[in-house]
Every structure is written in C-alpha cells, then in structure tokens.
C-alpha cells in the first residue's frame, strides 16, 4: 500500500518540479537535434544513433537524479516523516527507482519514435532491420538506465555530499551501465537485446537488494 502512495507521490514530484517536462521534451528534442547536427550518419539510422546516445546519457541522468535527490532528502531529514508511519523502508527506495525508470522509459520511447519518424522521411519506410535495431536500442537503453538508476540509489544512500554524489554517479552510474553495450562493440553476431536483458535485470536486482539492506540498517 505504502509503495503505491509513495510511487504516485514521486511521480507528482517529478511533474511539479518540472523534471518530467525536461525529460519528456528534452530527450526527444535530442533526437531531432541529432538529425540536424549530424546529417551524415554514414548509413546509421537516426533512431539507432539516438538510442545509443540515450543509453549513455539517460543512464547518467538517472544516476545523478536519484543520488542527489536521496542525499538532499536524507540531509533535510525528509524521510523521518515517512519512517514514523507504517512505511517499509525499501518502499521509499523502490518508489523512487520505478518513478525515475518510468519517466526515462517514456522519454526514451518518445525519442526513439521521433528517430524512427525522421528515418521515415530521410531514408524511407523503416525496414525490419532498422526496426529491430531500434528495438535493440530501446532494450539496451532501458537496461543501461536500470543499472545506472540502481547505482545512483546506492551512491545516494552511502554519500552525504550532493556534489560528491553527482560526480560519483556520473563516473560509476554512466560507465558501469554501459556494460550492456560492450558486446555490441566486440562481437558482431550477438543478440544485443537478449544480452542487455540478461545482464541488466540480474545486476539491477543485486544492486537494489544490497541498497535495501544498507538502507534498512541506516540510522536516521
């Protein structure tokens, strides 16, 4: 019960603090900018290029967003008012995590859809190959953002300075989340979608379990 209340509360927070607006408009805008900044993509569809960019940038955004928000709220003792009520500690983290992931997923889908639209008008109707490559990008982006978000939460719990949390999130959140893209760099015939999911899901779960444990022991 408390998860649903906290989840909707987080989403409302994103709307009210304009973060949702920045993500939903900003990331699709990037897809359009990609087309104008780099019109010669050497045959690579804009949708795929956008997907790769978002995998890298979305992960960093998620990690920074989550870590700094948790550090800020911990320092301001915002959680005291939750924890004196029948609220499970892990629900606070999970609500934040899923609210950020949901926002980023919608922004990513919007961006890729715009990329596909641009491809439609520049190189014609999306072929099955382009469509599959875009789907690969989508799954890879979500996997990367899942890992980055989980790392962002971990940093938010462990660190007390907002600045340090932001820097660590950029270093660790972004870089570690790109683990899902590595096989694509080294191997040509690997199923990227499958690999991203196979690495992203268990790694995210492990990191989240660790942070739930740490958060449950944390002194407020």
């Amino acid at each position: 019960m408390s998860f649903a209340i906290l989840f909707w509360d987080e989403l409302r927070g994103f709307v009210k603090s304009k973060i949702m607006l920045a993500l939903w408009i900003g990331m699709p805008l990037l897809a359009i900018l990609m087309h104008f900044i780099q019109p010669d993509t050497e045959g690579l569809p804009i949708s795929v290029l956008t997907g790769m960019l978002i995998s890298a940038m979305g992960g960093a955004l998620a990690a920074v967003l989550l870590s700094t928000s948790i550090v800020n709220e911990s320092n301001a003792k915002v959680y005291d008012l939750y924890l004196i009520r029948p609220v499970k500690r892990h629900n606070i983290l999970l609500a934040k995590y899923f609210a950020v992931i949901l926002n980023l997923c919608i922004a990513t889908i919007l961006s890729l859809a715009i990329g596909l639209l641009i491809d439609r008008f520049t190189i014609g109707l999306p072929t099955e190959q382009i469509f599959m490559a875009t789907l690969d990008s989508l799954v890879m982006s979500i996997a990367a953002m899942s890992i980055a978000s989980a790392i962002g939460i971990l940093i938010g719990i462990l660190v007390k300075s907002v600045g340090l949390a932001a820097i660590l999130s950029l270093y660790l959140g972004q870089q570690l989340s790109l683990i899902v893209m590595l096989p694509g760099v080294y191997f040509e015939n690997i199923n990227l979608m499958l690999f991203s999911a196979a690495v992203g899901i268990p790694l995210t779960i492990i990191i989240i379990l660790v942070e739930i444990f740490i958060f449950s022991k944390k002194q407020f």
Partner: protein
Amino acid sequence: MTNEKQKQIIEFTNVSKKYKEVEALIDVSFVINKGDIFGYIGHNGAGKTTTLKILVGLIRDYTGDVLIAGESLKSHPDFSNLIGYLPQDVGFQEWRTVNHALITFGLLSGMKKSDLTQRILEILEMVGLTDVRHRKIKYLSGGMQQKLKLAQALLHDPQVLILDEPMSGLDPTSRFQMKNIIRKLAASEKTILFSSHILGDVADIATTIGIIKEGVIQRIGSPLELQNELTEGDAIELVGHNLSASITKIQALPNVERVELTSNRHDRLVVTYSTDTDIQNATILLMAFLSENKIAIQNFNYLKPSLEQVYLKYMAGGTTQ
C-alpha cells in the same frame, strides 16, 4: 494489571544509547502517565532528541526496554497509530503544498482519502494554517512550517504526541499560540511529551518535568515538587510600614529560621522557616502576631524558588537520581 500500570502510557527502563564513543543516553528510566504533559528539558546535546527518536522508532539499536501502552517497542515496533511526532529538524520537499503534504502523510498513516479532506480542514483550523492551505511549503514562514509539523503529527488523531522542541524558532505570538494548542490537546486527554531547552516554555505548560544532562536523567517531578525540594524552607514575604521594628519579635516565633529586611519606600521582610515547618500553621501564627501587635501590612506572599534555580542546580552538577 494494576491501576498504576494501566495509567502508564510510556515507560523507559534503563535505556542506553551510544553513538560510536559518545554515550547519548545512560540508563534512562522514567514513566509517563496518560494525560500528562511531560516537559523534557536539558542543554543542546543532552540526549533529548535521542530519547524521542527511540520512542518513535527512528532509533532502534539501544539497550534497555521501552514500553508503550504496556507493550515493548522491541517486540511490537509499530506504534505509529498511537503516536504523533513533531521532529525538530525536518524538511519537506520543495514542490509540496501544505494540502498535498498533509494528504500524503495522512494516506501513509493509513487514513482513507474520503476522511482526509475534512480532517485536514479541522487540523489546519486548529493550528491556524487554513489561509495557506494551498501555498507551497517553501513559501511559509518558519513559524508556519513549525505549525505544519504539528499538523502532520495530529492528522491521524494519535493518543500520544511527541514534540521535539515545538516552540523552537517561533516568535512570541506563535509561541503563545503553540502553548495554547498544547494545553488544549492535553485537555482532550492526549498525552504529550515535549522537549525544550527553554525553561520558561516547560514551566508554563508541563505537569511533569524531566531534567536530563549528558545522557543522564537528573530529576523527574512536578514543577511544585521540584520547586519545593530546592528551598531550605518555605518563606513568607511581608511588605508594610515600620516592619523593621518587629524583626526581633518575628524572629522569636516558632520555626522561624531567619528574617531578612530590605527597606526602600516600604519595609520588606522575608521570613524563612525551617524545612519541616507546617506553613499553614506558621501563617496563622504570623497573622495572629501581626493582628495582636496592630501591624498593618500592604502585601503578603508565599515565596517559592523559581524553576530556573532548580534547573541551574542540576545543570551545575546536582545530584543524580
């Protein structure tokens, strides 16, 4: 369960808490009865907030036992329906309005959304925040934010209120209003435990006072008990003309320990009695003496030591109970 036990709503027994090398609480024991206004006083860092945080479940690694309504906090860790908490330092997310914050905290406390609207209106009316219901919290003054903290604590109508420095940062008018709210809550049979480092606030509203210093409870008692214990004996103040002429005779009355005179426009005599004196009998004898000797007085007062003197005695290193 005995009647005495049934009256007790909070019971701390030998509770200790250490932060690394610092002992925040050492063998703290006290009992709070239903309907009490327990004023918990001590310097900053004395252990007040640690005590309150243990009570509301924010600190869990302590030794000793805490009973709430007869049940141990360790075996039954969720008393959130019974307790409302006003924390000392707490923040609200910047984007929240007063109304939205109260809806969220109400829902998290297990209240139904249909009941919340009416309840929020009642609580805002009680704390005087009705006009700012839809204002963002970041635009509220410090005093209004303090009242909002109280509002969220009252929302689910808890029986016990734990208030950590409720008057902190308030201007004199808000301080007066806050004290009145606390008195009204106590009159509606709520039990209130509040901490403060301002003696005047505690003296004004507490029915029981606990003094803590460096993690150790120094003394617990009613304001009257604490005042009585400090005095060497009761004293009576007389103000009138030519009282100085009667000093020797008054000194000779039973149980009078000493008589002090200060003269300005009128004479002021302070008659101090020995500690075991029945002050009512002593007053009758003194009045009879004044009447027999046709000594007119303009003012007559019982003198008690102030709570400030009691507090300073313990803070300066008084006896530990």
